[in-house]
């Protein structure tokens, strides 16, 4: 049973793993010491560690984003929620509270933001892209109100450890996103939760008729997204020992959505894989790393990124994979009909 699950998962994430390997190889070509890791100043030190560490905010965001997108929704507000949560945590420690209170406070703010989005989408039935746009635009203003327009710096060692500290030599941010990712992936796949979320994304009306409380589930999904964003916001603030309301998480919602798409999840909802999204986040960070290590003038940054991402998406497109399939199979074979379920689909569904 377990071996079958691992095999199914591997089959699902194989394209992402191949692309990640290619992106890392590109890093290696540009900078031969890329995989070199040593232990310096009490922490693991190396480019590959940077990829894992700097990918943390996007990785955290895409955990929640994957769930939201699986319900055929989208959450544009995550970047702004990061700024709000970072500002909340910073202002709490500046006021003399402990780091744990600050963390709880920030997570609570994130939960409130997510709850707000959830109510707009699930109860008031506003289109998700519009509903979350409200908070995306207004949220940064809220964050600026909390910090009073300045970069709120703090020196609380407990809070700083969440972003810039280490656990057994591994940067804390890496530990946090891997643990949370594993926990959520496990929670949705070892219970019926994942299947219920998928069913809402595929056909909400019939899921409701089948007895699923789609309203509560939708609110919960946005709430989880808010919580993930809040955690990412705290890490980003802790990393620079200050809450920068203008820039924290700016445009990161787009990276998170991109990570979900690179992870092979459909923006139209339905089947999803959190593990694949997380690998998508690492692919994006590897691309960023190539740009930084290449030493090219910054004018080329966005062009290089666009070309690489376009390449990745083209490789993943159904037409291209069909051509691959045709090339590999000797002689002409009938195109698989995507409307009728393939025979192994039932097992896949259980195992991802």
């Amino acid at each position: 049973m377990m071996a079958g699950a691992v095999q199914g998962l591997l089959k699902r994430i194989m394209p992402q793993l191949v692309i990640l390997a290619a992106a890392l190889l590109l890093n290696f070509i540009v900078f031969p010491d890329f995989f070199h890791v040593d232990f310096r100043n009490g922490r693991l030190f190396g480019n590959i560690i940077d990829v894992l560490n700097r990918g943390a905010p996007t990785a955290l965001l895409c955990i929640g984003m994957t769930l939201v997108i699986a319900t055929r929704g989208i959450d544009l507000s995550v970047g702004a929620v990061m700024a709000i949560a970072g500002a909340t945590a910073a202002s709490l420690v500046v006021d003399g509270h402990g780091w744990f209170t600050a963390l709880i406070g920030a997570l609570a703010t994130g939960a409130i933001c997510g709850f707000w989005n959830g109510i707009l989408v699930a109860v008031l039935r506003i289109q998700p892209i519009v509903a979350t746009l409200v908070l995306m635009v207004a949220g940064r203003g809220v964050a600026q109100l909390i910090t009073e327009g300045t970069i709120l710096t703090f020196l609380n060692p407990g809070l700083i450890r969440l972003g810039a500290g280490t656990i057994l030599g591994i940067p804390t941010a890496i530990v946090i996103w891997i643990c949370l990712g594993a926990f959520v992936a496990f929670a949705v796949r070892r219970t019926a939760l994942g299947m219920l979320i998928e069913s809402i994304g595929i056909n909400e009306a019939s899921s409701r008729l089948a007895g699923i409380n789609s309203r509560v589930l939708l609110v919960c999904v946005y709430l989880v997204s808010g919580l993930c964003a809040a955690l990412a916001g705290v890490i980003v603030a802790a990393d620079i020992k200050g809450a920068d309301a203008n820039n924290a998480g700016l445009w990161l919602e787009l990276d998170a959505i991109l990570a979900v798409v690179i992870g092979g999840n459909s923006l139209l909802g339905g089947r999803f894989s959190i593990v694949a999204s997380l690998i998508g986040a690492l692919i994006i960070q590897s691309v960023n790393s190539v740009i930084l290590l290449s030493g090219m003038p910054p004018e080329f940054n966005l062009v290089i990124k666009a070309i690489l991402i376009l390449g990745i998406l083209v490789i993943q497109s159904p037409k291209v994979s069909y051509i691959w399939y045709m090339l590999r199979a000797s002689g002409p074979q009938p195109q698989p009909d995507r409307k009728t379920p393939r025979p192994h689909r039932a097992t896949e569904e259980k195992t991802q």
Partner: protein
Amino acid sequence: MNIKTTLLAGAVAFAPVAGFAADLTIGFSQIGSESGWRAAETTVTKQQAEERGIDLKFADAQQKQENQIKAIRSFIAQGVDGILIAPVVATGWDEVLEEAKDADIPVVLMDRTVDAPDDLYLTAVTSDLVHEGNVAGQWLVDEVAGADCRVVELQGTTGSSPAIDRKTGFEQALEGHDNLEIVRSQTGDFTRSQGKVVMESFLKAEGGENICALYAHNDDMAVGAIQAIKEAGLKPGEDIKIVSIDAVPDAHLAIANGEMNATIELTPNMAGPALDAMEAYLADGTMPPKWIQTESKLYTAEDDNKAVYEMKKDLGY
């Protein structure tokens, strides 16, 4: 025109009764509050006006030119004695500046200039971005005193004029000094977190011990980079010399703590010279030069950075 004439007549009539300086009413159209420096500029402008007994009418344009144009029209309608503008963009000002000129209201540009005939405004008070980069480069040239030095550069947002000009100025200062070489240059988007991320990659790509100095186009990126250098087990300010531009309070604090070496001030006090020029012009028609350059003061460890920090921290940075 009519309103202005009436008000002017009124002002002349009341002048002997109400004292002299207190009569001035100046309108100030600010871009918004997108950065800490901008907030400090607003605070300092209000302080300067209060010290001179000027009645300052403040309008926040929230990054929109149409709001600025509206504000200027309303200042003209109110018949103010002078207008200060921090223009959000360079183009599209001719018409409204013409209106101010017709109403005989002098306009002083602050912090940025505009693409309009220069007879439409009294003067422009700005810093010279190229000069700032030049001061930073010159400091580094003097500091290393002929020793070989591999420099890394954190640029501002790609394509923005501060990034282009501060880079140009720095490179000009380094010309002819072959011991100094810029080995890596990448954008940090003027933010702390990108400054830290990009510095991390510099430290790995070049090897921390092979980098002798960092030049950052603003202090925020330098502050981020300082943390990256510390995490790599090196001493910022000693192992890697750091010079950046802006002189925000946190940079003074870093210099006071020995983690940074120098910063060049982009003064938030643009209003001081602007109001000086305005008052002189209104008093006896003295024409100021068309461009007033603010001082780009260099702060190093020799200055009392603790005191400057205390003075600056409440300005709204």
